[in-house]
């Protein structure tokens, strides 16, 4: 991707890993993992007896199995745990069948629903996952099971990839885009094109006309928010509502989606990018319990 072409990589979001230093995984009965290999980012979540123990969040490389391994290695870093200590791993996401150490592959729709239920509690009914190359609106029941969903995976409008393109165009770091887009006195009219390619040329024209970056970003964020609200409205939205995925970290999008819907999204307690991997790890826990019962 853009790795070797740009001198300043404005699109680069921050990778991270974490583990709970107060938990001793050696005392755990069930150690499970969920590995979400997305088109843009990959995550691994490790759970001990159904509790979050460690996670990693990093960029997906050109090779899916390698990306899965890298995300796993990074989650394990500093824990003293090795891959052999994990009893059951589930792969999910776009590259789910290419997770070498996973016993099962489960769709990201199911995993995001399950993960959102864990992150936000059983009152969550509508989940909007705004990922790198697709956007899904999911209705879930109180157990975190999928009731229905709608997905846009054909078009970059309303995805993280579209936002990366804009960050690069304006030379604004992707983590600053949301905040900056809110620094306008009043909302400008939204860019008229939903297509990222056309929106980009429209934005260039607005910049040449003398619009400040903040205003151009506001016009784009509005269009992007409008686009995903359309998806949510087709599915039918019911509270509680939450947004997962990388775009959930963009306040410029989140606040505009909330405003157009007239509904507030629940505040996340965890990194919104790991929702799918959490769901995977929870499925892994349940599957292992079932397996052990049979024996």
């Amino acid at each position: 991707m853009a790795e070797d072409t740009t001198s300043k990589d404005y699109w680069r979001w921050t990778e991270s890993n974490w583990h709970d230093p107060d938990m001793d995984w050696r005392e755990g009965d069930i150690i499970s993992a969920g590995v979400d290999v997305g088109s843009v980012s990959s995550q691994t979540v490790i759970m001990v007896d159904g509790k979050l123990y460690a996670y990693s969040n990093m960029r997906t490389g050109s090779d899916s199995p390698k990306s899965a391994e890298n995300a796993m290695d990074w989650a394990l870093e500093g824990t003293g745990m090795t891959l052999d200590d994990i009893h059951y791993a589930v792969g999910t996401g776009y590259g789910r069948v290419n997770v070498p150490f996973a016993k099962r592959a489960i769709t990201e729709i199911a995993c995001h629903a399950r993960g959102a239920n864990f992150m936000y509690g059983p009152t969550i009914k509508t989940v909007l996952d705004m990922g790198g190359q697709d956007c899904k609106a999911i209705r879930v029941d109180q157990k975190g099971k999928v009731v229905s969903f709608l997905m846009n995976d054909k078009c970059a409008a309303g995805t993280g990839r579209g936002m990366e393109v804009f960050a690069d165009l304006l030379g604004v770091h992707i983590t600053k885009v949301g905040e900056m887009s809110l620094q306008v006195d009043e909302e400008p009219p939204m860019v008229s094109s939903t297509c990222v390619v056309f929106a980009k040329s429209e934005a260039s024209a607005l910049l040449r006309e003398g619009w400040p970056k903040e205003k151009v970003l506001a016009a784009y964020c509005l269009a992007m928010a409008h686009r995903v609200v359309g998806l949510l409205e087709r599915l039918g939205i019911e509270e509680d509502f939450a947004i997962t995925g990388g775009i959930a970290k963009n306040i410029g999008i989140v606040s505009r989606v909330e405003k157009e819907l007239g509904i507030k999204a629940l505040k996340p307690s965890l990194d919104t990018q790991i929702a799918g991997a959490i769901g995977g790890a929870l499925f892994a826990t349940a599957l292992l319990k079932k397996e052990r019962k049979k024996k």
Partner: protein
Amino acid sequence: MITAGIDVGAKNVKVIIQEDGKILGKGLVLAGLDTQASIKGAVDAALKDADLASDKVEKVFATGAGRKDVPDADDSYTEVGADAAGAIHLYPQARTVIDVGAEEGRAIRVDERGKVVDFAINERCAAGAGAFTEAMARALELPLEELGRLSLTSTKAVPMNAQCAVFAESEVVSLIHAKTEKQDIARAVHDAMATRITSMARRVGVKPDIALIGGVARNPGFVDSLQRDLETEVLIPEDPEYVSAFGAALLAAGLGK
């Protein structure tokens, strides 16, 4: 009667001056920030090319996405109407007109009298317009002309999964990393775009003869892929990007259908 047609497109402004169905002069200027200046530039170029003074032009019709921006036009016409008028004048036997421009693709069905029966437009998505090949040429670090020529030397069909131009760009980069030959990637790009245009054309029904107009008709790689997809030859005029402007000029003279 001497008339002019001005086509204010997303990328270029094109002007044709005609008399009794014969082209006297043409002018093309990149549509810059100042639309008025671009229009004036293209008109002046066409007048110079025709060796005419502006007062000799009796009537002016405008067309294109920016047709409302032409202040002195006597009337304006939709792109579909102008496309059909221009293409049918050049090829009376054509029943389907496909116009692929920088930011828009159109498929138009006309009856035996040259009247528009049905049409479909793609204006929302770069995947079905010239912008798609431009983005892919950038990803391949090739001039656009080279992309078209290179495509013809490919002997292998490589599928492209992405529809969106943004995603396709990443896919092209992955194909480069996977050491896929550049000519095969070039063909994959044109095949993908041809598929999109063909499916749009099928919505209105493809009937021979087929005329292909718009700037993208100059790309031999795209033409090759489109012909393979349609399983038939298409007719391409000498100056495909001017057909809509020509159509507007014909309509101004009362020569269009």
